[in-house]
């Protein structure tokens, strides 16, 4: 079997100087002795993988949070090496039904949306959750989202404009991702209102899943298929000169870089066009502010302190913490960044029966600081992290645009 690792990803392991910096940051190995750490399962074990099975199972504990890669001073693509090796191991051993299911949020989203009240009641029912845990291995206490009755897509049909439409105002494309379509439609609505507040027209084209959950559960061919389809529907807008703005840090990062690197899709022209125009919404608004285009004059005071957690996937964007910069513009608002690296859920990792306890232990420093803050809500850019943090702390968690939305007096 040909080794599927992208040459540049695998080749980067030769840069490892064994400095152990990655080991000291890995939140999973800090939480459990079952995981020996990134250097060990990454650049070290990779030398023994080559062709054939992985020498060592401990790899499956890696949550793919990506922290190791960005703290490595030598440019070793540790998390990427681990992701690819994990996928290969999964392919050899067979991927459980549970992983196939949670890897397709559009499927659950589509099944649940029409019967949202019932689905939500079932998802909150302890007996149902215990049965689901036994049958498919989704932990009974793992945070599941709440289905919205109508999808965001069906609410915003009018915004489905063609690319390059000559308008009076500049137009951006909004990429909502599955979470905002099926569950957190209010986040999507707030994002659109906040963008419009800046004098932008917002186009919401038809769009599917980015394939990230498939990728993180090792289903690469299916993930590539999803990426190609999504890139195909967004690329005409990118080529017509529209920027694409996303409220999902993980899905945005997938389109910016992960699909190209991990799924080895560097040659996909559509994807390249989309990557070049893709922005996280806070990154985009902060750049507007840098150009003097953000309507700071309309921000009204919010007298409160809020804890803010920068999700790992946002760190992967390499743009810093623009949410902090934006929140600091709101008079009276005192955002405090949580001093911890990961909340533990890492997409679908923390949902799994066998991983749940480790995920909770990883997140404890985040939860502790949110609880101790005594704040009425906490802020985080990534949806799965918000659900996880809210469930673990009992404190609601919102996207940073919610703070702007409030300060603009939009509701």
């Amino acid at each position: 079997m040909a080794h599927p690792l992208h040459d540049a990803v695998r080749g980067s392991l030769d840069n490892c100087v064994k400095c152990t910096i990655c080991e000291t940051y890995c939140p999973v190995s800090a939480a459990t002795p079952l995981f020996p750490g990134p250097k060990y399962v990454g650049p070290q074990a990779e030398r023994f993988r080559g062709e054939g099975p992985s020498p060592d199972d401990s790899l499956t504990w890696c949550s793919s949070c990506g922290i190791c890669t960005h703290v490595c001073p030598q440019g070793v693509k540790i998390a990427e090496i681990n992701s690819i090796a994990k996928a290969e191991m999964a392919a050899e051993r067979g991927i459980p039904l549970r992983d196939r299911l949670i890897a397709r949020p559009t499927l659950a989203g589509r099944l649940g949306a029409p019967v949202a009240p019932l689905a939500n009641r079932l998802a909150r029912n302890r007996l149902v959750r215990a049965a689901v845990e036994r049958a498919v291995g989704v932990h009974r206490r793992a945070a599941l989202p709440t289905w919205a009755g109508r999808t965001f897509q069906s609410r915003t049909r009018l915004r489905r404009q063609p690319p390059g439409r000559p308008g009076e105002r500049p137009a951006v494309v909004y990429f909502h991702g599955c979470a905002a379509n099926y569950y957190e439609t209010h986040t999507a609505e707030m994002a659109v209102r906040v963008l419009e507040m800046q004098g932008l027209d917002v186009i919401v084209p038809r769009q599917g899943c980015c394939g990230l959950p498939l990728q993180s559960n090792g289903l690469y061919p299916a993930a590539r298929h999803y990426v190609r389809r999504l890139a195909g529907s967004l690329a005409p807008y990118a080529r017509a000169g529209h920027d694409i703005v996303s409220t999902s840090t993980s899905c945005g990062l997938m389109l910016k870089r992960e699909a190209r690197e991990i799924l080895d899709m560097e040659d996909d022209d559509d994807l390249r066009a989309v990557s070049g125009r893709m922005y996280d919404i806070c990154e985009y608004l902060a750049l507007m502010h840098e150009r003097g285009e953000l309507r700071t004059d309309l921000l009204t005071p919010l007298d409160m302190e809020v804890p803010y957690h920068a999700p790992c996937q946002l760190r992967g964007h390499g743009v810093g913490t623009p949410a902090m910069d934006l929140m600091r513009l709101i008079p009276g608002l005192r955002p405090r960044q949580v001093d911890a690296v990961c909340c533990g859920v890492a997409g679908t990792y923390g949902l799994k029966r066998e991983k749940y306890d480790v995920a909770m232990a990883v997140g404890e420093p985040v939860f502790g600081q949110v609880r101790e803050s005594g704040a009425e809500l906490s802020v985080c850019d990534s949806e799965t992290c918000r659900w996880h943090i809210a469930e673990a702390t009992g404190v609601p968690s919102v996207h940073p645009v919610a703070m702007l939305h409030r300060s603009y007096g939009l509701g």
Partner: protein
Amino acid sequence: MTRVAVIGAGLAGLVCALRLAQGGADVTVFSRGTGGLHLTPGMIDVLGYAPERVEAPGETLAGWVAARPEHPYAQLAGAPLEEALDWFRGVAAPLRYGGDLAANMLLPTAAGVARPTAMAPAGMAAGDLRGGRRVVAVGLRALKDFFPAYLADNLRRAALPGGAAVEARHAVATWSPRPGADVQGHYFARALDEPGARAGLAAELRAIVEPGETVLMPAVLGMRASAEAWEDLCERAGAPIAEVPTLPPCIPGMRLNLLLTRALGEAGGRMVVGPEAVGVDGSGGRIDAVRIRDAARVRAVPADHVVLATGGFESGGVELDSYGAVREPALGLPVAGPPGGGRGLGPRHLDEHPLMAAGVRVDDRLRPVDASGAPVWGNLRAAGSIIAGAVPWREKSGEGIAIAAGHRAACTILEDT
């Protein structure tokens, strides 16, 4: 507000960024990864060997730079270095750094060598070997790569001034935060932040130590609350304890990294760890933006001033290609190669390697200069190991240069604005 981009998050970059943020600048640090502090023992070396072991670094420096006009200290020795170290003592107060330029301490390494260094946290300074000492070196069974017998053995042979001697024996403690497993230093350190864990270890130490002895322990006694953890452990064990730095990850360096990055955040500075700097845009001799490669694209980050603190060869601040050409890859600055030309590499590992002194040459305001001595960019500074002319690992000068240059670069920027 003056916008400053600092490239590199090692000691030089962090010191510079923190000083700038305290001075009211809008500062962002961009770094390809964590800087070298995680790998360093957390001591502040100013000048350890010149080439003989240095007893009084302040005094020795004057003559030493007079003979070496190309050395970074030629721009930094004297007032800039002293001011920087005073400032550092203040910001690092929670770690209680002691020592100064008057005299080097002699602190034990894990290999049992008496290492000259100017400043160290209280928990390490407690192991100062000057004047001799009775010690018991205590290893931790679960911690690999720390050998108390080897440490004690070599310490008995250590060459100390005035013929002083070390009386040393060794022992092993079995307390572990993860029983049954090999445990790296950072797990010990995080566990020992908790008083309950310290009680367990202290009980063993009390049984080991004899009156008049100092306990030498691997430097894993707490991560966040380190000075308190150390003090509390001494009290519980009923004996003085001194920390000895381990192989990386080196906890005292991590503590300093944590302290500086937190202080930077509190002073309003930003850290962007992950993306790398790949160039600058500018005209008329001034930079207007740094080019940063993030997940999707190379973006131009506007900046009024830029500080290059990308480190030496170890960190990729300087590169050598297979033709023997030395380059500065981030901004493409002119590089002063090994003095005397050639590849600058000695035949054996511990020989002189003049190549290690390669880097960018700077003027008195730490601006990188070209071959004629003129600044390449009016608003670019360099700090730390990227500056040409020093061989820190041989001279034991790395932290002194990093702190003095980082602080000085910040002060000259604040003066300019």
